[in-house]
Structure formats: structure tokens, C-alpha cells
């Protein structure tokens, strides 16, 4: 028996002991299966392709049921993703199937951004899962996984080569999702053209470095069929929900004047191969790859973006606690710094404003000091004037007094003279 992954992980030092009877742990796979069956399965398919390539019809045909939706028109302003979830049951297996359709893909004149909404959608699902995984109290075992497990890329049956839109889109998606390219409406291509077309597509994919999903060949039970199928990629499919009577059976087919294309006839198209590979053989592997490869890549990039590392500069591994604590300290330090900066800025402003106001105050005082001085001068002048007036007044008074005195003396003298004259006359 080949060594299992777990045995390999355990390493060389583990001893193998023989059993002397039937213990019963060979029921473990059944226990596991019973658990998953009772929980139900979940699968999410994304259909990318131009309007009118028969995406909805193919889904109806693949899952043997009529899903919702009306045919879309060509005049959508941008690419939108519409998703619908259905609960299906086959025998005792319940499947929660989500189908996501790209509406309006390839219809715009400028298709440069067409792939963006698809990438965004896929990333959003990864992000939702990552957030759930990082929560402190989480319920991962009952989480409805919305990550895209398979992307069916519909190639238009031109017969020549891939369109540049196809190459660009697939290149952007190949590290995010399992891409299974299919040639849509392949009843428009003849057999010989088809072979050439497939080769051209495959070589273009290889030369552009687009990694499409390879059916796994590591499990011997399915290795052979998977590797054969890998050689038939991309699958040329025809979808139809209409039934036509062939022989005595009703089969799904498309009826043309020149013949009937039977959907489930392997010489007519690869529909059966697609169904086998996608659903019956590798559904679980598609889910596993999504989780262990595409999701892990997204998660790794996201965490690295946020500054998480596995080892510190000295190559010692971080424990989770250390990492979170370091992050937290860094974060708190940042917040503190911001707070400090703001305070400092205010202190600065206050200082500046105070200086300004002080200046203004100083100017005011200077102004009034000047005025005061002026006033003082004026007052002094006035005093001087007053003084001089006083002096003049005094001088005048003196003059007046002196003159009056003189006058009165003169009068007296004059009187006495007159008296003398009169006296002399009398003699």
C-alpha cells in the first residue's frame, strides 16, 4: 500500500505494528463520508463568457433542470455578476449549488476593465471566508462556503484562435480560480476545424502562460481517465434542453435540416466528458484545490499586505500571540503618536497666536504712549502760553499802575501849580 500523506508527514521514526485481528478502523472513511453526506455538499460555479454563447443553456443541460433567468441583452453598461443558489438532491446526496453568471461580458466597446468585476467578485468571496476564519468566535463547520470552485470559460466558436479579451481575462483569473475552458456552441465547427482549433487554443494558452485546471493524476483510481481527459481540453460542448426522438428514446438534441446534434453522444460533442470530469469525478478535487491553493494564495498575500510575517528578522518563528501583540503595540504606538502630534500642533498654534496678540498689545501701548507724549507737549506749550500771558498781563498792570500814579502825581502837582498861580494872583 502506498504511503498516505499522514504517514509521510509522521516521518521515518514511526513504527508499524501488525494487527492480530479485525480492529475496525477501516470504517473511518465511511464515518467521514456519512458525516459529510449528512451535512450536505456545496459547490459554486462561475460561468464567464460573452452574451449569447449558451451559458445558461449549458448549465440547464448539465444539471438536468431549468434554472432561472431570462436571456440577457447586449447593451449592459458594464460587467455584472449575478448569482443564484439552488438545492439539488440526487439519491441521498444533497448539493447546494451556486451558479454565478457574468452578465454583459464582452459587450462593451472598451473591454479593458471587463475582467475587474470578475476578479473583485472572486476576491470578495475569499475575503468573506478569511474574515470568518479570523474571527474570535467562529463557526467554520457550518459556514456556507461561497468561494468559486470552478470557472467555466466559454470560448466563442470562431474556429481561429482566442480573442485577446479571452487571453487577458484568463490570465487574470488563473491564479484565483480553477479555469476549465470550453468551446461553446461547438456545433458550428466541423470536426477537422475543431481539432485545429483545440490545438491553437492550447498552444496560445501555453505561450501566454495561462494555467488552466488540470484533472489530477496522482490518485491511481482515477489517474488514467483524468490524464486522457486532460488531452481533450478544451471541451467542445453543445447544450440543449429540448428533446428529440432518436430511435425509441427521447434524447437532448438540437435539430437541424441536415441532421440532429445529440448532446450526450460522445462523437458529436464533449458534453459527456465535461459532465464526467466536472461533476462525477473531480468535483471534490476542485473544491480542495480552491481551498488549499487559490484561497491560501489569497490569504498569504492579504496577510503579508497587512504586515504579518512568519519569522522575525532573526528567523525565529513567531507565535500567534507574539504576532498579534506586536501588531497591537505598533498600532497603539501609532495612535499615541498621532495624538501627540495633534497636541503639539495646537501648542504651536497657541504660542503663535499669543505672540501675535502680544505684538498687537505692544503696538497699542506704543501708540498711546506717543499720543500721551504729544499731549504732554501740547500741555507744556499751553503752560508756556499761559505763563507769557501772565507776564504780559502783569507788565501791563504795572504800566497801568505806574501811569496812573504818574497821572495822579501830575494832577496833584498841576493842582498845586494852579494853586500857586491862584495864590499869586490873589496877592
Amino acid at each position, binding site marked *: 500500500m502506498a504511503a498516505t500523506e499522514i504517514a509521510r508527514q509522521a516521518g521515518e521514526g514511526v513504527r*508499524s505494528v501488525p494487527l492480530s485481528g479485525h480492529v475496525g478502523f477501516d470504517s473511518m472513511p465511511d464515518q467521514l463520508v456519512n458525516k459529510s453526506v449528512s451535512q450536505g455538499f456545496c459547490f459554486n460555479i462561475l460561468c464567464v463568457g460573452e452574451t449569447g454563447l449558451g451559458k445558461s443553456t449549458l448549465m440547464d443541460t448539465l444539471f438536468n433542470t431549468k434554472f432561472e433567468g431570462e436571456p440577457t441583452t447586449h447593451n449592459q453598461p458594464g460587467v455584472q455578476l449575478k448569482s443564484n*443558489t439552488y438545492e439539488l438532491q440526487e439519491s441521498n446526496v444533497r448539493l447546494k449549488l451556486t451558479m454565478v453568471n457574468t452578465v454583459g461580458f464582452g459587450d462593451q466597446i472598451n473591454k479593458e476593465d471587463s475582467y475587474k468585476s470578475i476578479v473583485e467578485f472572486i476576491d470578495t468571496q475569499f475575503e468573506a471566508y478569511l474574515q470568518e476564519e479570523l474571527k*474570535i468566535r467562529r463557526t467554520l*463547520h457550518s459556514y456556507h462556503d461561497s468561494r468559486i470552485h470552478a470557472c467555466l470559460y466559454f470560448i466563442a466558436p470562431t474556429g481561429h484562435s482566442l480573442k485577446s479579451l479571452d487571453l487577458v481575462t484568463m490570465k487574470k483569473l488563473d491564479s484565483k480560480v480553477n479555469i476549465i475552458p470550453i468551446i461553446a456552441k461547438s456545433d458550428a465547427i466541423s470536426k477537422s476545424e475543431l481539432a485545429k482549433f483545440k490545438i491553437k487554443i492550447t498552444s496560445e494558452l501555453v505561450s501566454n502562460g495561462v494555467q488552466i485546471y488540470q484533472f489530477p493524476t496522482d490518485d491511481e483510481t482515477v489517474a488514467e481517465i483524468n490524464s486522457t481527459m486532460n488531452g481533450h481540453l478544451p471541451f467542445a460542448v453543445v447544450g440543449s434542453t429540448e428533446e428529440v426522438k432518436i430511435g425509441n428514446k427521447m434524447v437532448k438534441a438540437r435539430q437541424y435540416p441536415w441532421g440532429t446534434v445529440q448532446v450526450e453522444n460522445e462523437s458529436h460533442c464533449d458534453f459527456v466528458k465535461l459532465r464526467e470530469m466536472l461533476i*462525477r469525478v473531480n468535483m471534490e478535487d476542485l473544491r480542495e484545490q480552491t481551498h488549499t491553493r487559490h484561497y491560501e494564495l489569497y*490569504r498569504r498575500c492579504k496577510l503579508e499586505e497587512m504586515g504579518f510575517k512568519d519569522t522575525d528578522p532573526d528567523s525565529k518563528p513567531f507565535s500567534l500571540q507574539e504576532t498579534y501583540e506586536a501588531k497591537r503595540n505598533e498600532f497603539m504606538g501609532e495612535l499615541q503618536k498621532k495624538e501627540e502630534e*495633534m497636541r503639539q500642533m495646537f501648542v504651536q498654534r497657541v504660542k503663535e497666536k499669543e505672540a501675535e*496678540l502680544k505684538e498687537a498689545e505692544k503696538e497699542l501701548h506704543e501708540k498711546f504712549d506717543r499720543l500721551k507724549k504729544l499731549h504732554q507737549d501740547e500741555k507744556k506749550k499751553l503752560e508756556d502760553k499761559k505763563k507769557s500771558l501772565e507776564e504780559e498781563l502783569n507788565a501791563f498792570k504795572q504800566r497801568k499802575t505806574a501811569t496812573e500814579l504818574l497821572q495822579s502825581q501830575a494832577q496833584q502837582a498841576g493842582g498845586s501849580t494852579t494853586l500857586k498861580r491862584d495864590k499869586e494872583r490873589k496877592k
Partner: protein
Amino acid sequence: MGQQKNLEGYVGFANLPNQVYRKSVKRGFEFTLMVVGESGLGKSTLINSLFLTDLYSGEYPGPSHRIKKTVQVEQSKVLIKEGGVQLLLTIVDTPGFGDAVDNSNCWQPVIDHIDSKFEDYLNAESRVNRRQMPDSRVHCCLYFIAPSGHGLKPLDIEFMKRLHEKVNIIPLIAKADTLTPEECQQFKKQIMREIQEHKIKIYEFPETDDEEENKLVKKIKDRLPLAVVGSNTIIEVNGKRVRGRQYPWGVAEVENSEHCDFTILRNMLIRTHMQDLKDVTNNVHYENYRSRKLAAVTYNGVDNNKSKGQLTKSPLAQMEEERREHVAKMKKMEMEMEQVFEMKVKEKIQKLKDSEAELQRRHEHMKKNLEAQHKELEEKRRQYEEEKVNWEAQQRVMEQAKLDASRTLEKNKKKGKIF
């Protein structure tokens, strides 16, 4: 959430279980079983009987032969294969448990071991670069109760109370062949009573949708705790080769369900509930550990009142929220500071204005005063000037008159009128 759709033909996803089966076989299985109990209770023998192999042998002695001074926790790994299925079995035993005179805290090494396995898993799960992680967490703990027939010992109760929220505990009555069926019944009832009394949560078998299965589960539940007997020797009984213990009075057969509950234990532990034990460990015990660990890291230094009921976030989301809160707080602080600043500036400017007005007023007052004085002075001067002019005019008139008088006199003198 989704709509129910009916299929009208073959699709093929009914094959999903097979795909899962195939992948799980390829990956292989692992299981970690812990055995705890005093020495001499037949733990190693039971393990050998359970897995029909010489896990413990002369070369690899059981725990009772390896007792050291303190309780150790040791693990041995073996790889066993059966029916295309490989199982990596890890047995963890605890030599020295309960054997000392003072057994206080002898459960601590056990708790530490379980926690360290959780820690390893948590760290591996939280790495940026993750690989397929081996699951070395303890999935089940078989706790051996000595067949005293009376009840649980204080050590038993203490151990189970401390471990029941960390690991799936399956209590077993060891060496059950020392009890008669009635004694065993009594003993079991007593033990279950005490377990309930102390609110100990032992491993519970899950309910299923299947009626039949539920009946079986009920039967098992009625016989808890399971009373087991183990044996390394094969004896011939009635032409059959069976595992058993030979006594002068008969053979106690390990796999005879009338003699003991060994078969029930084996079926339950290995054949039907091994996967569930792993699931419960992963979904319940590990998640409890993880959320407690992360809550401690996240809420270090954060107000405890806030953290209640917010454990649905990841530590990073928590930091994001704290950052937002802080930004809001800073904005508020900034606004407040701004307001205070504006107010103070206004005040100061107002004061300045007031002082300016005051000074202006005073200046005006003084100016007016001076002007009034000026006017007064002007008036005085005017008066004086007027007076002066008048007086001088008067004087001039008087002078003129005098002059005229004296001229007349002279004239008269000359005329001789004066004798």
C-alpha cells in the same frame, strides 16, 4: 437559502461521497488517544486489546513500568493498516498519575500537554505560509476508575472537572471482572450520579436522524460508564479462541458483552464514533481554546465591559474598529481644542479692544480738556488785549488833551495874560 430544484435525469454528483472516500483513504487518518489512571488499572492491556496489537510490550513498556518521581506525559506513535486504510495512532499516557502520596496538581501536566497541542495547532493555523497541518490534538481521553464499588474518588472528580472542557472524556471502570453484575450496576449508577452532581460533561453521543441508530445510542447511554476488561492472552473456550482472563472458576471473556462492556467501547470508540470524537475536539474544545486565547490577546488593555459580546470579530477587525474609534475621538478632541482656542483668542482680542477703547477715551478726554483750557486762555488774552487797547486809546486821548492844554497855556503866557 436556495431554491429546491428537482433533477430530471442523471447528473452525477451522487458520486461525491465516493470522491470524498477516495481522497480520505489517500490522505490517511490520524487519531490521538490519551489514557489516564493510576498504575495497575490495566490501561496498557486494554489498549493492546482494543487495537489487537502489542502496542505495549516488553520492548515498549506500558506506563506503569515507567513511573518517575513526577507525573510525565509521554506519547507513542504507531502506524496501523487495515482494509486499505492507514491510521496513525498516537497514544498519550501519563505514568505516575495518582500514584504519589500527595497528588495535588497531578492533573496539571495533563492540562499543559493538551493546551500545548492546541497551541501548536493554533500557531500552525495562523501562519502566513500554511501547509497541510498534522493534527496532534488529543481527540479522546479514557479515564480509568478503580473498581472500588463505592464511588468516585476525589482525585477522579477533580481531574474530570478540570479536563472536561478541554477534551472528550470517556470514563471507564477498569478491571471490571472484580465486580459482580449487581455491584457493577450499583457502582455505575453511583458514578453517574456523582458526575451529574458535579456537573461534569463527559463525551456525549450525538443524536442522529436515524431511529435505529438512536435506539443503539440510548442503549449505550444506559450502560455508562463502560466497565471493561482487557487481556493480552488468548484462551480456548468451547473450541473457540478468545481473549480472556483465566480464573480457577472460569474465563472472563473480553469480547463477551455479558461479561463486560469492552465490545461496546471498541465499537463506539473505533468503529462508529472515531470521526465524531475528532469533530467535537475540532469544533468545540479547540474553538474554546482558540477564542479564549485570541480574546486575551486582543483585549489586552481594553476595557473589559466593551469586550463582552464582541467576540465575533477577528483581532484585526477589532484593531480596525479601535482605529476608527480613535479617529473619531481625535476629531472630537480636535474640535474641542479648536473651540477653546477660538474662545480664548476672542477673549483676548476683546480685551485688547476694550483696552484700546479705554485709552482712546482717556485720550479724547484729555484732548478736550486741553482744548477747553486753550479756549479759556484765548478768551483771557482777548480780554486783555481789548482792555489794553482801550486803555492805550484812553491814554492817548489823555495825552492829547494834556498836550493841547499845555499848548494853550503857552499861548496864553505869551500873550501876557498871565500876571
